[in-house]
């Protein structure tokens, strides 16, 4: 059935469909409706909803709940996402499945609370101190918000990681007609036996209170959970293993949408809300006879370097469009070889419009052709 649904509502419905039974959060624009919906959806289903005193505590409660076996999430926006980094690091260190939704708005600091941005891409990867495994997803429609919320849960459960879903202020608040699809759900795998089970370094998860008593700690620790906080390779070993779990499955994790790329001389790279404008720009350019194509990145972390590299190197010019002053473009540039990579960005609270992206694309392709001509 076609339903008229808001982005934030789709996120909450996706969470419940994924089996989320614990939500802790703190009000913040533009994500508050997610918690409002969860406060209505969870109690009749026997799930837990709690409004905490801040974002630090929201993430703490989420991790605590996850360690009892609950699928747990929080939702926030820039300032709150920054506060959550401490516990996102803790979740990574302790291999705790959980989902963090970040409805991006213009920053830094309070910025523009009701205006869209895509400035949290790097924070989603490197916001916590130290190295860690990371997964960050995006969504570009209300339907996407639903399915990617479920994907976020599935990946967090499968790889025992905090997974970040990056939305933005426009998507959070906009409504679209959608038919919610059935999507397979992944549940945390439990060890067959608790005898000699090592609680860390394995995709299998044993919650607290299940008969094997161990310590969950943010200190570097070994597989058994014993702290190894001074000159030990245990912490690095477990971090490498977590990164490896993600890398080994990168193909399954890195989701993209590819449109008209086969013969594309001009490749537009975009993600989230901006991918929509980029798609419109591709249609516009194709109508003019310019062979443009779109690579929409639904997964930003791990970054699909190989795919982006091969698409970029096959093109004559690349334009990366994003609502920031240059984040994903640095990753694309690093793998594009000799293909020129241009950046089109803004952080004034407005979206990038199809016309602007098309114009940047035209110029980029024109310059690339000129340059080749000049070299001859």
């Amino acid at each position, binding site marked *: 059935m076609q339903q008229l649904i808001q982005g934030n509502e789709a996120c909450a419905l996706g969470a419940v469909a994924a089996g989320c039974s614990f939500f802790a959060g703190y009000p913040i624009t533009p994500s508050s409706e997610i918690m409002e919906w969860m406060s209505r959806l969870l109690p*009749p289903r026997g799930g837990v909803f709690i409004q905490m005193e*801040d974002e630090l505590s929201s993430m703490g409660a989420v991790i605590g709940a996850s360690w009892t076996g609950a699928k747990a999430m929080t939702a926030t926006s820039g300032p709150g996402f920054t506060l959550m980094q401490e516990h996102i690091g803790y979740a990574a260190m302790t291999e705790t499945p959980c989902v963090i939704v970040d409805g991006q708005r213009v920053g830094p600091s309070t910025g523009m609370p009701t205006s869209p941005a895509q400035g949290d891409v790097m924070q989603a990867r490197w916001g916590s101190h130290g190295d860690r495994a990371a997964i960050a997803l995006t969504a570009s429609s209300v339907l996407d918000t639903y399915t990617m919320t479920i994907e976020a849960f599935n990946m967090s459960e499968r790889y025992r990681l905090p997974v970040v879903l990056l939305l933005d202020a426009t998507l959070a608040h906009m409504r679209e007609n959608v038919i919610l699809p059935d999507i397979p759900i992944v549940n945390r795998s439990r060890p067959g036996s608790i005898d000699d089970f090592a609680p860390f370094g394995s995709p299998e998860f044993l919650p607290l209170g299940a008969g094997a*008593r161990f310590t969950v700690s943010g200190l570097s620790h070994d597989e058994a959970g014993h702290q190894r906080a001074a000159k030990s390779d245990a912490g690095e070993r477990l971090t490498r293993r977590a990164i490896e779990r993600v890398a080994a499955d990168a193909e399954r994790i890195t989701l993209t949408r590819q449109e008209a790329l086969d013969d594309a001389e001009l490749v537009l790279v975009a993600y989230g809300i901006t991918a929509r404008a980029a798609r419109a720009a591709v249609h516009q350019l194709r109508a003019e006879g310019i062979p443009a194509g779109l690579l929409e990145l639904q997964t930003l972390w791990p970054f699909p370097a190989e795919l982006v590299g091969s698409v970029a190197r096959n093109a004559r010019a690349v334009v990366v469009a994003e609502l920031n002053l240059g984040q994903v473009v640095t990753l694309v540039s690093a793998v594009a070889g000799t293909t020129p990579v241009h950046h089109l960005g803004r952080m004034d609270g407005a979206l990038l419009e199809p016309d602007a992206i098309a114009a940047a694309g035209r110029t980029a392709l024109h310059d690339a052709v000129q340059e080749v001509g000049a070299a001859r």
Partner: protein
Amino acid sequence: MRHGEHLRAYLREEAMPNVWCPGCGHGNVMGALTRTFDRMQLDLDATVVIGGIGCASRMPFFLNTNAMHTTHGRALTFATGVKLARPELTVLAVMGDGDALAIGGNHLIHACRRNIDVTALVLNNGIYGMTGGQLAPSTPQSFRSTTSALGSIESPFDTVELALAAGATYVARATTFDFDEMPQMIEAAIRHPGFALVEILSQCPTYFGRLNKLGDGRALLDYERDHTAPLEGITREELAGQLPIGVFREEIRPEYTRQYAALCDRARRAGNG
């Protein structure tokens, strides 16, 4: 069997030696906890001890329960998540004074306010031990630390008054000197159906004692004895600078996880969602 040998079952011996200095009071508290667990015959599989960061907050490593060693000041937020998701578990949070009163002060007052059935032990030694003896929000005025060499000019928090004002339903203060009373209060706090806070004055000979020329652990126990007085039968005037020891509040108010369960029932009956 040696006296107390059976209490080893409550300790995680593979995690020993512990991190505490000779003469530190935190071991007294851990000993009291093992005796309390034993007397209560607590199901260790259904018990979770959660610490923050600091000397006191290391305790979860050494107790043979389910354990979380979390982030500085935020043990109660994890405890809230664990307790809400599985109310049948017994949840304790062990924190230091800097942990609970400075960086974690906000979480502390909100846990008190919610009256969630978690037992909070605040081990107050008046100073930051793990980071090297810095000023704590509990350091008495004019006392020295490595960041108040000329004596503190700050007013310390009174943990008990703070918890009372914030709405905790069981509030007590003990000292590591009170070998018998302290475990009794801990037991009452664990049995209490609501948020229970026990402040335990503990001794830090390495920093608090040394920097303030108060002597070793033994001398600090004497100091605790001399600077505290039983709450019962004494007026505020008669206290004369001594801290009152005892149970300040023990009352029954609706507990958070039970209220939440009732809310779920109401929502189900109303067919919400």
